[in-house]
């Protein structure tokens, strides 16, 4: 590791007070640090408490997901795909399933599509609740996380009942979903959604307008739409900066095309940490509404939930790119097939990887506590960065 000693004289408002150059302090935030959610490492140079430069060093958790995809059967890919972003496992599986189905030209039964849409929205709620709990924790509020997890537990229970898993659901199959949901499941989902909706104000009221929380997040880490474009940022982080782009509306997949009147894309214009937080918070309400709309339709949609697959599943020669609006942002799989059982090449476009690149722009000039606030508000999953 190269030792770096940057010496700068910072002369600002306190004229004459900062004339002596002081040695800056090099600080490694991560890979083992409470606020990096895993093994992201930031190498920062500090002048007092002000960040002079910041450099995210990624790759501590690189597992070579794309290469692993290339030596797996199309059905086996799904089990790997749901692991890179462990908080949106269902949505990750979905992308692979959609890509393979498209290459095969496969028709997915209507009921499967609606169930997938419902589960994808429930997964989105789970994901967002995780961040709604952990972000205040990073700002120092220790209570919201327990309220968020209470709601997570409610949704988690119905997800578990259907899929059998609590984290890596593995419920998607090429051509549909694994199996029909248990009897009476939709009623319990409806109850869970209603429960979460009725209790969300607890979490909301605890943190959203807290004076200290506002002071810590308003105007901090402002991300401009230009930066969003330049860095390819997507998802709630981009929408908080006023970039009103959501695949569910702008290029509908699954059943979103028929849900347009229930679909509310939450946007903010300021682009600071608080608007990113609010985007996620309000998105939970929006997703609860979507889940209800899905349940309404599911009541009248019957039929099979998957299709019978041949013993060996070979995609015809060609390539496709399937992207989905994952909880964290755009998640895409570019799959090239040479007619084998496995993809010949695979490229995974994960949301977090793009989103955190902007940290080099956002962090310099901020204070160390703001660094934590900004880092938390970027809503990343380290596995999604490192793939």
């Amino acid at each position, binding site marked *: 590791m190269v030792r770096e000693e940057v010496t700068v004289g910072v002369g600002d408002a306190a004229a004459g007070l900062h004339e002596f150059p002081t040695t800056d302090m090099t600080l490694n935030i991560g890979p083992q640090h409470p606020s990096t959610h895993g093994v992201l490492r930031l190498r920062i140079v500090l002048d007092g408490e002000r960040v002079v430069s*910041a450099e995210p060093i990624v790759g501590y958790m690189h597992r070579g997901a794309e290469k692993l995809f290339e030596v797996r059967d199309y059905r086996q890919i799904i089990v790997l795909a749901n692991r890179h972003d462990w908080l949106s496992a269902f949505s990750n599986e979905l992308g692979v399933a959609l890509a393979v189905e498209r290459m095969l030209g496969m028709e997915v039964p209507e009921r499967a599509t609606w169930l997938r849409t419902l589960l994808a929205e429930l997964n989105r709620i789970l994901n967002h609740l995780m961040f709604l709990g952990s972000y205040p924790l*990073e700002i120092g509020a220790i209570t919201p996380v327990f309220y968020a997890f209470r709601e997570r537990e409610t949704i988690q229970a119905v997800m578990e009942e259907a899929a059998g898993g609590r984290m890596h659901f593995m419920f998607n199959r090429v051509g549909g979903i694994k199996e029909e949901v248990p009897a009476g499941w939709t009623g319990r989902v409806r109850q869970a959604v209603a429960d979460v909706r009725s209790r969300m104000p607890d979490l909301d009221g605890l943190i959203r307008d807290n004076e200290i929380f506002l002071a810590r997040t308003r105007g901090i880490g402002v991300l*401009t739409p230009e930066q969003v474009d330049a860095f390819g940022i997507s998802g709630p982080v981009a929408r908080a900066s006023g970039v009103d782009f959501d695949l569910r509306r*702008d290029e509908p997949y699954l059943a979103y095309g028929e849900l347009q009147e229930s679909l509310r894309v939450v946007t903010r214009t300021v682009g600071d940490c608080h608007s990113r937080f609010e985007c996620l918070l309000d998105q939970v309400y929006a997703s609860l509404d979507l889940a209800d709309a899905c349940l309404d339709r599911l009541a009248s949609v019957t039929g099979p939930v998957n299709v019978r697959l041949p013993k060996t599943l070979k995609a015809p020669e060609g390539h496709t790119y399937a992207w989905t609006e994952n909880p964290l942002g755009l998640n895409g799989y570019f799959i090239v097939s040479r007619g084998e059982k496995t993809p010949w090449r695979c490229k995974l476009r994960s949301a977090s990887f793009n989103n955190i690149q902007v940290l080099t*722009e956002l962090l310099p000039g901020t204070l160390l506590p703001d660094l934590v606030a900004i880092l938390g508000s970027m809503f990343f999953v380290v596995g999604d960065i490192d793939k």
Partner: protein
Amino acid sequence: MSNLAAESPTLADFGTDVWWIIVIKVVGIFALLVALTLFAILFERKVVGRMQQRIGPNRVGPRGGLQSLADGLKLAFKEDIMPALADKPIYFLAPVIAAVPAFLAFSVIPIGPIVSIFGERTPLQLTDLPVGVLIVLACSAMGVYGIVLAGWASGSTYPLLGSLRSAAQMISYEIAMGLSIVAVFLYAGTMSTSGIVEAQESGSEVSAFGLNFDGPGWYAVVLPVSFIIYCIAVVGETNRAPFDLPEAESELVGGFHTEYSSLKFALFYLAEYINMVTVSALAATLFLGGWRAPWPISIWDGANSGWWPVLWFIGKVILGLFVFTWLRATLPRMRYDQFMRFGWKVLVPVALLWILVVATMRVLSREYDFNAGDIALYVGIPVLVLVMAVVWLWPDKAPDPTVKEGVPPTTRGAFPTPPLDLVVPPSPPLIKRDAVAAGKRGGGKRA
């Protein structure tokens, strides 16, 4: 009341104890502090648990009652690590420097009236001095050294940052704390803690609208501004949430005690909780009538005699601990600069002005024979109403949507950042999206 008044110790009652009474008191204070610390840790975890829909520790001992004791013992059997880069003597002494003053501060806190211990009549207080409260302030100032030296001697960046923050924070809030209690001295006319408790025994008679009644004696009621400033300042002084910046675990990992383990760490932990107990006890002494029973109980004649006051006193301390816990469960952490700004630009000037107002009122009421109660009634209440009205009716300052606080221009070229003049060629979805977002691109351009 006369026989009760006789129970109240005066300065003359101190320094007369026989040696074995002193030994009993010293050991008693020490034991009380350790017991209160163990209780406070458990109490905090239980209360925070309830506030977070959990039940808190319930495995060790009856209903989890021995949890903090078990934690303490566990710490003793952990490996004691001496970092290679540490400045060894200072690293070794820092926990001692933090813990000892924490114990000492309690020596002047009055726990009860004069009682009889094995036939010896003695006040339930280790000692008292004409400058009693100064002992507490001196001890809390000494405690800062332990923290600063710990961070400095660890030879590591996180502890150093934590200790620098801590030093700046503690001395800043010491100013506010010191100023907040000046008004108490003004009213009590003494700095001795037993004298201040004595002075809060009963309030002055207030005649309002033809009615005569005893005004409240507690300085929390008489001097509300002082009490509020004191409460805020001691939260900063004890490094507790929302002002727990020195050990902000999401930023600085463990803060000043990152490199400490085993019993050395336990001493810092002990010192923090003893400090909490001490400032709660000082709040009870200075503002909440000390060991005297609160109003509904004080109707009972025996409430302030014998050993009963110990109960009221402990109750008030626990109330203080509860407030600390409540704050911790509710509030996010403030940012260092916001916190310092609040201390220096709000608390200090308000405390100074308040001292001037109180002093002026007292002098005027004596020199020109005003009744302080009258002034409070006919001037204070309208002023209070006016202030409240202004506070409530003041239009909420609409937050500027494009504030860029703390985001000065990026230093370009400091690190290989992708060139921002890179124009991304519009892809088909982008064209569609540009059309959608075109109206929203007005503001927010980076400086």
